[in-house]
């Protein structure tokens, strides 16, 4: 060590090992964080990918009020009282988001809507919602990611771009890792990419199928038919843009592998056909089990969107788009999903948690959400267009960096977070616990008539 470096002021440093990155659904839990405890910043995020680094290293504690009503700073309890009152007074309150917070906080959301007879929906409704609906229709053979690492010799990505969206998916789980029965890593696997354009992901593939846009269902159905002994049609190229021989070869590889897996993304779920596409893919994976062991898995985006699905499912029986106005959960995507309740101008109060619809939703939905017909309440960790437009805005601490809790990886494996340093902002859990209590008090006072089977 040189003399000069000895003079450098020793910083109050903390190392957090085995931290989990909650940027994407990979939830890599092997990150080593170096934290400057004086400045309250993370200086190094060893083993994190480019997205993970930007998530950890750019996080600063902002100098902002915890709670605001109509732009004016107020004590947190006042903001919670106001939010509870808005939700209870509303005729059609909605709750949306939840995908970037921990399960412990998510757990309070459905009970809040249960008490005020509202509607709960998660960001699933605008990403893998169709996969959730397809699952209800056809089921799904699936697995944890470690099975892919240990066994899969056939790996397919359909309508997704993990090289840019889930950068460590290849190295940690699916393409290069050396597993129990795949000791040579990538050499033991055939990697197939199906997409409408040559993305960065296509670069790692052994076989790349460039599909005509919107023809996913057609190709999937051809493969399903092939499972039942039907030949691939001669005009295959005209139908979906891929040569007949390529599809035949692909089918043989799928049939003859030892353990096959298909990951699929929003290129499949959000194009023409939606849940029919996801359903066709899950059904194909099911069909292939006649020949070999075959599984499929949606590649989920946000850090804990999978957790939101799980929590809402165990509390209500349905994964998203759930309404409580009749005194029990009802599920109807298209009716109770947020883009729809906003675009039809039905919602008159909206509690948005850990998401930013004002930046992402279609214009008619944003117009209603930001209008004075809909009282907007935002609980978020950062300033977003949604929190700026909100009547009541509560700023919370960031999960995985400032607060602990549970997140579910894209394969439903629950992982505990290891926070790096404290934040002056309250956690989502703290805010939602208080809000649930307040809403519950008000609902008991309101003494609404409860529906029973007699009156149905």
């Amino acid at each position, binding site marked *: 060590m040189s003399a000069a470096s000895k003079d450098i002021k020793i910083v109050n440093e903390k190392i957090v090992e*085995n931290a989990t990155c909650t940027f994407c659904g990979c939830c890599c839990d092997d990150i080593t964080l170096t934290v400057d405890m004086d400045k309250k910043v993370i200086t190094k995020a060893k083993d994190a990918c480019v997205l993970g680094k930007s998530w950890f290293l750019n996080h600063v504690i902002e100098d902002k009020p915890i709670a605001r009503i109509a732009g004016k700073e107020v004590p947190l309890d006042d903001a919670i009282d106001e939010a509870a009152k808005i939700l209870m007074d509303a005729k059609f309150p909605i709750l949306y988001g939840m995908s970037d917070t921990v399960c412990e906080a998510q*757990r309070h959301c459905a009970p809040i809507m249960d008490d005020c007879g509202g509607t709960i929906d998660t960001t699933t409704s605008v990403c893998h919602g169709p996969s959730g609906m397809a699952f209800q229709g056809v089921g799904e*053979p699936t697995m944890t990611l470690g*099975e892919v690492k240990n066994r899969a010799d056939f790996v397919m990505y359909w309508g997704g771009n993990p090289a840019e969206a889930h950068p460590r998916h290849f190295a940690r789980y699916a393409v290069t890792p050396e597993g129990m029965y795949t000791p040579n890593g990538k050499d033991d696997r055939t990697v197939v990419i199906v997409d409408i354009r040559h993305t960065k992901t296509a670069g790692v593939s052994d076989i790349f199928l460039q599909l005509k846009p919107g023809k996913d269902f057609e190709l999937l159905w051809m493969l399903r038919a092939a499972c039942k002994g039907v030949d691939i049609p001669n005009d295959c190229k005209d139908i979906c843009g891929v040569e007949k021989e390529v599809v035949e070869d692909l089918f043989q590889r799928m049939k003859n592998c030892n353990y096959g897996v298909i990951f699929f993304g929003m290129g499949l779920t959000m194009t023409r056909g939606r849940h029919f596409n996801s359903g066709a893919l899950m059904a194909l994976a099911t069909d292939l089990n006649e020949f070999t062991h075959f599984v499929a898995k949606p590649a989920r985006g946000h850090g804990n969107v999978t957790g939101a699905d799980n929590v809402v499912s165990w509390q209500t029986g349905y994964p998203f788009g759930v309404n409580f106005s009749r005194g*029990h959960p009802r599920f109807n995507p298209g009716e109770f999903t947020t883009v729809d309740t906003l675009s039809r101008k039905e919602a008159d109060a909206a509690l948005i948690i850990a998401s930013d619809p004002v930046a992402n939703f279609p214009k008619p939905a944003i117009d209603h959400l930001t209008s004075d017909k809909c009282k907007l309440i935002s609980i978020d960790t950062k300033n977003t267009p949604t929190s700026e437009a909100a009547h009541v805005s509560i700023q919370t601490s960031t999960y995985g960096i400032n607060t602990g809790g549970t997140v579910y990886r894209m394969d439903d494996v*629950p992982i505990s977070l290891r926070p790096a340093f404290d934040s002056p902002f309250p956690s989502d859990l703290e805010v939602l616990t208080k809000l649930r209590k307040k809403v519950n008090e008000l609902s008991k006072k309101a003494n609404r008539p409860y529906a029973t089977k007699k009156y149905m």
Partner: protein
Amino acid sequence: MNNEIRIINGIVFDPTNNIDGKVVDICIKDGKIVSKVSKSAKVIDAKGMAVMPGGVDIHCHITGPKVNLARKLMPEDHRLDPHFKTPNTQSGSGGIVPSTFATGYRYATLGYTTAMEAAVPPLTARHALEEMYDTPIIDNGFYVLLGNNLFLQSLIAEGRFAEFKEAVAWWLNATKAYTVKLVNPGGDEPWKGHKNLNVKSIDEDSKATDIAPRKVIEAFIDAVHELGLPHPPHIHCNNLGHSGNFDTTLESMKTAGDRRLHVAHIQFNSYAGEVGKPPKSASKEITDYVNDHQNITCDVGQVMFGKAMFMTADAPLTYLLRSYKKEKWVNADTECESGCGILPFDYQGMIYTHALQWAIGLEIFLLSKDPWRIVLSTDHPNGGSFANYPLVIKLLMDYEFRKLAMKSVNQKAMNSTILGELKREYTLNEICIITRAGPAKCLGLKDKGHLGVGADADVTVYDMLEDKEEMFNAPRYVMKAGQLLIADHEFVSDYTDKKVLRVAPDYDKEIEKVIKPFFDDFYSINYQNYAIQDDYLHGLGKVIGTKKKNSIYEN
């Protein structure tokens, strides 16, 4: 607040303390049964009512990852059975796999206050604990799936039994489980690694690990015995559901020698006949063995007609059953640890096999001589919902009703059984044993299943009705941990001192050095992030002590 309750004039059934239908007062204070309470205690007049300990379900599937997948799979089923919000309870969805809130409430409305989740993979045990926290009222615990754990199998195969025992203890601690669950031991590897095959005999070496199921069963029985867990390994035997499987079941039980073993949903393992052909009843062979061996306990897994949901770690079986109707199907592989299959199902009385399964379950109940070692279960939701328990009780208590029920189902099946000849009728005391006192004893829960001084104040009060289904369907009062939850059939509160029951056997910390390298190589999460922190018990954890025993009759 006055937390004292005195139940007066009730007809008490407390088989553990030899009280069979006697009028005695039951006093409750601070969540426990006590000998007396002050004059200011709340008085419940149970004149003409039956007072029993709260029910204990030894085997059901109500929380965890596979349960939640099944929930997500069945919107059409939830839709038909909404669970309404009341001023004191939250709303939920019912059906064959109810939402967590509805599960807790519905168990309570049957008078059950404890229910054990029977199969959770270690990797996703956090999920099960989180759902338990959201399941109101009832005490829970779960059995952790270790029978297809590749690391543990490799220790058995290499004969490293001392390390094996330590590793089992480590896993029980790391997951906060109640005991070990073995499901189709040795069957996962052929399924996942060899193109959907399965093991056929308990002496067959599974291709991947070179280890026969019998060796796995033996090793776990030994290890759990040595660790002195309150409940022995809970086994779902190989060849479950296949005709002619009773041999496998007998062999599995013989493997235990004179050490304890709990055979889960034994009805599904009591079939004679040839593989691939319709089954015949082997209830006699199975009950003969169970009657003669005090070390064996079992639950029946009664099949009830109507909706069911296969939900099991026995993935090959579920896939086989899918071939009948090509229903929607879920398979979920858990790395290095387990498989899982989920399939909606309907049991229909006019179908030979289904009617026979129903009859075999009842035969097992009626042929068994020791009610303490045979527990009422439907393997919810595999044989039917737990909501069927009152109907099962009526079938057991009423010979005429049973005869009537037999007339309405497949006659070929009825003619091939001896059910019609079995005139035995269960008494209320025996029902109290197979639903409460017995399972508590089998689980080693000294504070549950009875009303003696010091027991947990989990108490149910039923109106004494002629129709036993009606009687057990709606207790008039339910108390859990001394809290009055249901009064006059309505929920007055859903708050209770809920517990998560678990074990914490001692182990040598050095074993972690043996386990960790396997994790680093073959798991997709970090070793340090695997073991579950105490937070996940939410302060509800209750450790049940360990002690070596050879039967439930030893204290």
